[in-house]
């Protein structure tokens, strides 16, 4: 049972990483090509796409959120990290469980309020890029924070599991 769950979680994990990579590669390549083609259009053909600048900025927002999710998976979020070198690993693990629960909760709260804001945008039919509904562009915020919350919880569960496993190794 437990191992079946672990296998499935692992699969989900790899699928998630794959999705992130697809999103990051697409967004970054798109950003690069869009910005360069905008220069070519302007300098060579003396024209331009009217919404290109706005799209560039939205891509940056998407890249930021997707990058934040990827950073979470690789445990690369910026932390002050002043105590890691002071305490033994076990103590650090326990502290990290605590702060990651905190991070998961904060991300959950932001995801919830971002979701509420999105409802409002739908209600008021806000638009971006001339006539695209704004909620499509801004969907990335609640979804990303929800995923961040989930990822922090996964890392918490993994750490607890790791601690328990170590315990049974140390004291038979």
């Amino acid at each position, binding site marked *: 049972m437990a191992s079946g769950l672990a296998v499935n979680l692992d699969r989900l994990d790899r699928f998630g990483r794959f999705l*992130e*990579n697809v999103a*990051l*590669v697409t967004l*970054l390549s798109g*950003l*690069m*090509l869009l*910005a*360069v083609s*905008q*220069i070519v259009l302007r*300098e060579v053909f003396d024209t331009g796409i009217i919404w290109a600048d706005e799209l*560039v*900025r*939205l*891509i*940056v*927002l998407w*890249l*930021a*959120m*997707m*990058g*934040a*999710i*990827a*950073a979470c998976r*690789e445990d*690369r*979020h*910026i*932390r*002050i*990290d*002043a*105590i*890691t*070198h002071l305490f033994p690993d076990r103590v650090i693990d326990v*502290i*990290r469980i*605590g*702060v990651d629960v*905190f*991070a998961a909760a*904060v*991300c959950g*709260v*932001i995801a919830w*309020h*971002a979701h*509420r*804001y*999105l409802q*409002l945008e739908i209600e008021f039919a806000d638009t971006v890029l001339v006539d695209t509904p704004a909620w499509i*562009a*801004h969907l990335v*915020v*609640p979804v990303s924070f929800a995923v961040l919350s989930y990822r922090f919880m996964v890392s918490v569960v993994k750490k607890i599991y790791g601690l328990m496993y170590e315990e049974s190794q140390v004291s038979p």
Partner: protein
Amino acid sequence: MILASIILVLLAIVGAPLFAVIATSAMLGFYREETDLMNMALEIQGIGDLPFLAAIPLFTFAGYLLSESEAPKRLVRITGAFLGWMPGGLALVSLAACAFFTAFTGASGVTIIALGAILYPALKHDGYPDKFNLGLVTSSGSLGLLFAPSLPLILYGVIAEVSIDSLFLAGILPGLVMLAMLSIWSLWVNRANRKPVGTFSWKAAGAAIRESAWELPLPFVVLGGIYSGFLAVSEAAAVTALYVLIVEVLIHREIPLKELPRIMRSSMVLVGGILIILGVSLASTNYMIGAGIPQMLLEYVADLVTSPVSFLILLLVFLLVLGAILDIFSAIVLVVPLILPIAAQYGVNEVHLGIVFLAAMQLGYMTPPVGLNLFIASYRFEKPIMHVYSATFPFLIILMLSVILIAFWPGLSLWLVPSS
């Protein structure tokens, strides 16, 4: 309120992700002001409203590509060909090459890993003392922060709403002063061993130029494009990224195509980490400005500070402490909006302020307890962290002197900036 602040600071110190701490402080602020927390979403979406921000992912990607290719080796070789004939040549070569590379890769520790790995053994081979080499390589990892197109310069421009073009110009002389002071010191320390790497030869120089022929135009594309008014900063970044991609993947063929997703991912991990902090800081800044925190700070310091000079002294002390705790990107997005209005009160130019801010924060890379470069060097060269501290210390002192010089000599920063 005070209790909540203390808990938040504690959480940050024990290693909670910084964005979560800042977000919480913003949300607590909104809650107290009875502002709907939906505003959080609005503020975070603000990442998508800032001009020129696209420069950050694009330059970061270009920097990661360069560091994964053979470009660092070529950079060392061409610097060696042109500076190697001087006494103490290799030390100077190291400083110059690192500064140049950091400007392009944004001082995220990539320099120590990419260039340090080449320079550290080379310095040792040329008979420089080990402690000096370690200190040199570690402190060189953040040298070049003041040169265009470094990420902190761009981020400061975006946050402070200062012309990024002006910042690029303003960084040149202070950056050169830092470089010169470290060079003079390196020559002095190694006065017994001022061995040139070799004599200058047109043949070697020509070969090095040919070898780097594809990368040499880069600085001219970036700076030339921006100053001719041809390209905006974010456009120059896009051109740089695409150009580097074509050169390293298709022309030099040093990066296989299948490695690209990994490199894109690792560069965007850094960008995501920075920009999410930017997003939540937009919220906390907005709350703090709404609540009049800058004015309160101003009243508070008004007793201590009576002149621009005393303001700068206080600022430097504050930044040195801040730099020891906070990384440069978080410090910019969190602190700059608060000190800008205060600096303006004392008549400190905002471009000059930016240069002072970054120069002082650069020291943070090598001050304990969180100096990033110390840890990277300790890890990379397998030396105990205390050993790296003490090896870096003299370099830290020299850089501190240069920061004081930069702070109290505004002309140094502003000389090249066209007054508007």
